[in-house]
């Protein structure tokens, strides 16, 4: 991947900022998401809540199903491959996906190595629980980062924890003396240049979204106020009582995330939210996959 291609791939993430990326499993859902104001959709066979319920090995979606969604909408289409499964990523690149999510939601294919994303022309987004993970993924070629959160739970607590962790580590590095950065790079297991970038710019070198457990307009506003540049909503929309209305409300809440009065109105009569699972009730912590 040329330097130029990586810039273009980071640039696409910049165009998604302030937007909501929604999980969809059919062309019909994709159209609903686009009409509700999604800035991109994530095509997958089963949304995280169902993956969690079904158990077993979860893999990349059928390319035919992904192509059906690509043909249904004009906004960017993303799809997930398993952590470390570069052959799945090659397939997604072959069908000209706009973004690959190397995702802990699927069963990891490699318990040690992530995909060498610098070998690809299409961009990758990866999950991270803290700054070290984020910078390691960026070093491997990720052009966008999202919090891991805990997918398919409707519980926002992990996404909050991961975003707070990242932001506080960014602030810490931002206030360090220059000669302290070398040791930080060693601790985070990332190149010094990436740590220096964070020190100088007080932010990640790529766009950073929130993901995992976002189910309401208030959840989305919370993540934006904590520093997310946009939001992924997975199970929260199509597992709820009124997907169209909830999706549109979350989109507006992300644009006007500090206007509590507007978010109060948006939160009215949304019907039933997805049934949540608390952190303590979960047997499988997806966020612990791939570090």
């Amino acid at each position, binding site marked *: 991947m040329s330097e130029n291609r990586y810039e273009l791939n980071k640039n696409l993430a910049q*165009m998604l900022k*302030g*937007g909501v990326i929604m999980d969809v499993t059919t062309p019909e859902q994709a159209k609903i998401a*686009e009409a509700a*104001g999604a800035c991109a959709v994530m095509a997958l066979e089963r949304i995280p809540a169902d993956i969690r319920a079904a158990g077993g090995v979860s893999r990349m979606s059928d390319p035919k199903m992904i192509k059906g969604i690509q043909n249904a909408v004009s906004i960017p289409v993303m799809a997930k491959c398993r952590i470390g499964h570069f052959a799945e990523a090659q397939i997604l690149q072959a069908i000209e*996906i706009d973004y690959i999510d190397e995702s802990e939601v699927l069963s990891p294919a490699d318990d040690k190595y992530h995909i060498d994303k610098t070998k690809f022309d299409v961009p990758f987004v990866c999950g991270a629980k803290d700054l070290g993970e984020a910078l390691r993924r960026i070093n491997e070629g990720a052009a966008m980062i999202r919090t891991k959160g805990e997918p398919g739970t409707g519980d926002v607590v992990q996404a909050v924890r991961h975003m707070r962790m990242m932001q506080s580590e960014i602030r810490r590095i931002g206030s360090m003396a220059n000669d302290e950065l070398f040791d930080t790079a060693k601790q985070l297991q990332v190149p010094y240049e990436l740590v220096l970038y964070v020190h100088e710019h007080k932010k990640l070198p790529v766009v950073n979204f929130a993901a995992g457990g976002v189910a309401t307009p208030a959840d989305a506003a919370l993540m934006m106020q904590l520093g997310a540049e946009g939001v992924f909503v997975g199970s929260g929309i199509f597992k709820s009582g009124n997907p169209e209305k909830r999706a549109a409300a979350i989109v*507006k809440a992300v*644009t*006007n995330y500090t*206007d509590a009065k507007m978010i109060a109105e948006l939160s009215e009569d949304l019907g039933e939210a997805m049934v949540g699972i608390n952190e303590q009730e979960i047997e499988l912590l997806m966020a612990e996959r791939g570090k």
Partner: protein
Amino acid sequence: MKVAVLALQGAFAEHKQMLSRLGVPSFEIRQKRDLDKPFDGLIIPGGESTVQGKLMRELGLFEPLRERIAGGLPVFGTCAGLLLLAKKIKNDDRVHFAVMDITAVRNAYGRQLGSFYTEAEFKGIGQIPMTFIRAPYIEDVSGEAEVLATVSGHIVAAREGNQLVTAFHPELNDDLSVHKYFINMIKN
């Protein structure tokens, strides 16, 4: 002088940064009450035109902004902003402000693998960097609209009176010249 940047979705922060480097104050428009503040020009950023078009309508921004643009407010649209201003979009039934005499083609270069960087001549400025991200191009201009730049035979920048559009993203490169060009449009 103050420039408003439509900040519903997309790369609005990048535009604000360009303006600040030029020493031009700016503010974000996210909802109707933001229109109460006075401004001399408007930037519509890149992002998704479907999202921005929908949010503008639902947040009560569409009609007031359309009236101001039709009334001569200087406006600069990049990428999605170009689509929002176009009178015709060849491969989309939805049009938005429909105030500029151009026919645009949406996602004209295909998906992300078709995104590219190049340098080309911009009328009145010279050679400038151009970053195209899932970009549209202009198939045709009519009326008073004037072509300002072409890449491989396709129109990628145009002006019609108070309206300036680029299919590429000057806010993603260091070069300030297109933003300067727009500021001069406001001054004159």
